């Protein structure tokens, strides 16, 4: 009989951990969109939102701890599964044709590492305030920091590119996580695919609006 440790060492258990951490990271993406949209409302809205998040140090660190654990689990088990999959087919095909595997599904192993690199860049830019972009960083003034960053062309392009990649990642991940939890059934399949499409599009567009608006000089002149 499986205990919990052997379960999470099994292929299915690893995918369950990917799915559960994926659900948490997905929920964070949804929450992050609301934050990003407040930027469009103006400095008062987004900075007030920032103060609300920081209202209690215990509370924000509770959520941060959850996110860090989810991210570490997601990346760790993705890496383990990736190497398992590499080992599972030591000699590849000379000629390979895909019938159903979507572009999003086949690029998960590439979009994942790019997103991790972007998250580190994004934290360095807007949370830690490192000088990764031109211009000063003002602690607590989220609006000014975003505006300042996105005014530089390449920064805005990096953000728009990364959230588009996130959309691609979510296009497969959002239904795949339900399927890894055993919720695959033909009765809910189209529902899950539909939900994945809408969620991926909404999240990537929602996050792209702020950098795109600044880049196009629709905000901040």
């Amino acid at each position: 009989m499986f205990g919990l440790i052997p379960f999470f060492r099994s292929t299915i258990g690893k995918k369950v951990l990917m799915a559960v951490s994926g659900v948490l990271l997905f929920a964070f993406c949804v929450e992050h969109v609301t934050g990003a949209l407040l930027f469009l409302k103006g400095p008062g809205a987004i900075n007030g939102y920032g103060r609300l998040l920081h209202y209690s140090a215990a509370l924000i660190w509770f959520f941060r701890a959850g996110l860090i654990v989810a991210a570490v689990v997601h990346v760790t088990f993705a890496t383990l599964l990736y190497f398992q999959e590499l080992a599972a087919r030591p000699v590849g095909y000379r000629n390979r044709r895909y019938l159903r595997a979507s572009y999003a599904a086949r690029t998960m192993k590439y979009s994942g590492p790019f997103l991790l690199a972007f998250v580190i860049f994004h934290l360095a830019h807007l949370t830690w305030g490192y000088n990764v972009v031109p211009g000063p960083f003002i602690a607590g003034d989220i609006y000014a920091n975003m505006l300042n960053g996105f005014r530089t062309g390449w920064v805005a392009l990096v953000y728009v590119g990364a959230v588009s990649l996130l959309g691609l990642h979510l296009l497969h991940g959002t239904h795949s996580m339900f399927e890894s939890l055993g919720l695959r059934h033909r009765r809910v399949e189209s529902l899950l695919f539909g939900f994945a499409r809408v969620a991926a599009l909404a999240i990537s567009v929602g996050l792209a609006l702020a950098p795109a608006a600044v880049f196009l000089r629709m905000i901040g002149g």
Partner: protein
Amino acid sequence: MNLVLMVWRQENARTVGHMQRIEAKDISPDMSFLEMLDVVNQRLTVAGQSPITFDHDCREGICGSCGVVINGVPHGPQPGTTTCQLHMRHFRDGQVVVIEPFRARAFPVIRDLMIDRSAFDRVIAAGGFITSPTGSAPDGNAMLVSKGAADAAMDAAACIGCGACVAACPNASAMLFVGAKVSHLGLLPQGRPERWSRVHAMVAAMDAEGFGGCTNYLECTAVCPKNVSPDFIGRLNRDLIGAVFLARPRVASTEAG
């Protein structure tokens, strides 16, 4: 019709293989793919060359012995069809046909296109059985099976264990095969007593063979000659999660009395 075959040739499991170009002239479009290989092999033998080794048995699409990757697709271009039931009319005159063995660490090449699928046998041996009293035949209708369960179990039982799902999966995962076997027995009352222990044992055996994980590409179901539904992968996931988190530990000594 005339074809150009690009065939994987490999002396044995220890040698390095290569692709060989073989002209296949005057092939009848009414031949099956394996009959075409038979004709090619006859000519190779007459010419003093070694014939192409490939696996086959029933040649009527039910045994699961045959199976090669044809132009990048296990069992070739015709959906829901084994290699032996694929006919040459689905190819164009003059077409280049690339033929490779199913590729997975768990399926080592024995020679040319023939692979060792014992890994599937070991997965079956781990849990593909039921406990049933021997002796007189059971009474008819003593054990009721709902129409839905009977249909679903039959759909799962359609799996012939050919290994095309593994061959097609970019991760070389055996989840569709194991899902079909676990569901086929677990859906029926006769297989219920071992439902949780079976899924444990078969998943452990699957992992021990070195198959990859399921990342929901759905390539398996697209090439499956029996169109086994990926719903059975969902059921496999549910059963293992259920076995770990819901099943009560079974202690033999207390249940014996």
